């Protein structure tokens, strides 16, 4: 079985990209430099996007790149910049509970893998050749999932407004005075 799998070039691509993704993800959670961690996440997400293309989900891959890497990571970097403590990078980034956490994460991995393997075994992805039609997706958005679509829109609005409201600087008494007199 393994030989057959390896004979397909897609799987070679998959392996390479997969390893890269995993390594990047590993570096995300173990890097001692915050910025490095963020950048490694970029790499991981990139790997994820390639996987999506392999799975004929081109649109999703592009959305990942645009939204996640393009906007979210940038946001993260801004956030890192603003919250960098004056003392710099001397502080250890991990707490002292590494072992229990490792165990838990291993357990999670084990359970999920087990579930996947026992459920799907060696089921082939047969219908993978044709690319996903964007029209199909669009049809889904405005057809069957129009309500979630709108709701998500609201969520984004709420997040926008909320973010601004939370992060706004309180006015000093002087500024309040000035505002009221206007």
């Amino acid at each position, binding site marked *: 079985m393994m030989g057959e*799998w390896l004979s397909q070039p897609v799987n070679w691509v*998959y392996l390479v990209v997969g390893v890269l993704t*995993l390594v990047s993800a*590993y570096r995300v*959670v173990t890097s001692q430099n915050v910025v490095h961690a*963020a950048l490694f*996440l970029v790499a991981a*997400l990139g790997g*994820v996007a390639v*996987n*999506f293309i392999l*799975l004929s*989900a081109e649109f*999703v891959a592009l*959305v*990942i790149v645009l*939204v*996640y890497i393009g*906007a*979210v990571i940038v*946001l*993260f970097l*801004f*956030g890192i910049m603003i*919250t960098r*403590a004056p003392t710099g990078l001397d*502080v*250890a980034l*991990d*707490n002292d*509970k590494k072992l229990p*956490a490792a165990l838990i*994460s291993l357990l*999670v*991995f084990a359970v*999920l*893998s087990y579930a996947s*393997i026992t459920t*799907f*075994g060696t*089921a*082939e*992805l047969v219908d993978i050749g044709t690319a*996903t*039609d964007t029209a*199909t*997706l669009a*049809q*889904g958005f405005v057809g*069957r*999932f129009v309500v*979630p679509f709108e709701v*998500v829109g609201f*969520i*984004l609005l709420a997040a*926008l407004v909320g*973010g*601004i409201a*939370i*992060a706004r600087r309180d006015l000093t008494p002087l500024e309040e005075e000035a505002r009221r007199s206007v």
Partner: protein
Amino acid sequence: MIATQFLILAAALFALGVYGLLVRRNAVLVLLSVELMLAAVNINLVVFEAMWRTSEAIGQVFAIFVITVAAAEVGIGLAIILMIFRNRQSANVDELDLMRW
């Protein structure tokens, strides 16, 4: 390609995200780990879509929803972290234990 290979990848990513969630001290890094986990979830969704090829590409639609919500969540999360940082001059989650016994 078999479905399992992607699912294992997703599981690994999820597990790593969990590890990071539990281990990292900086709030931003915790959020980063959460992003990892969400990415893993997206892979799962897309794999299932690839397996069953629905007429409206439900898996992918949902993956897009997840991405969108994740983005919104990150925005809010960072706003909160900003406020915490402003009040306490530190983004260390270990120190955010005022709701203790």
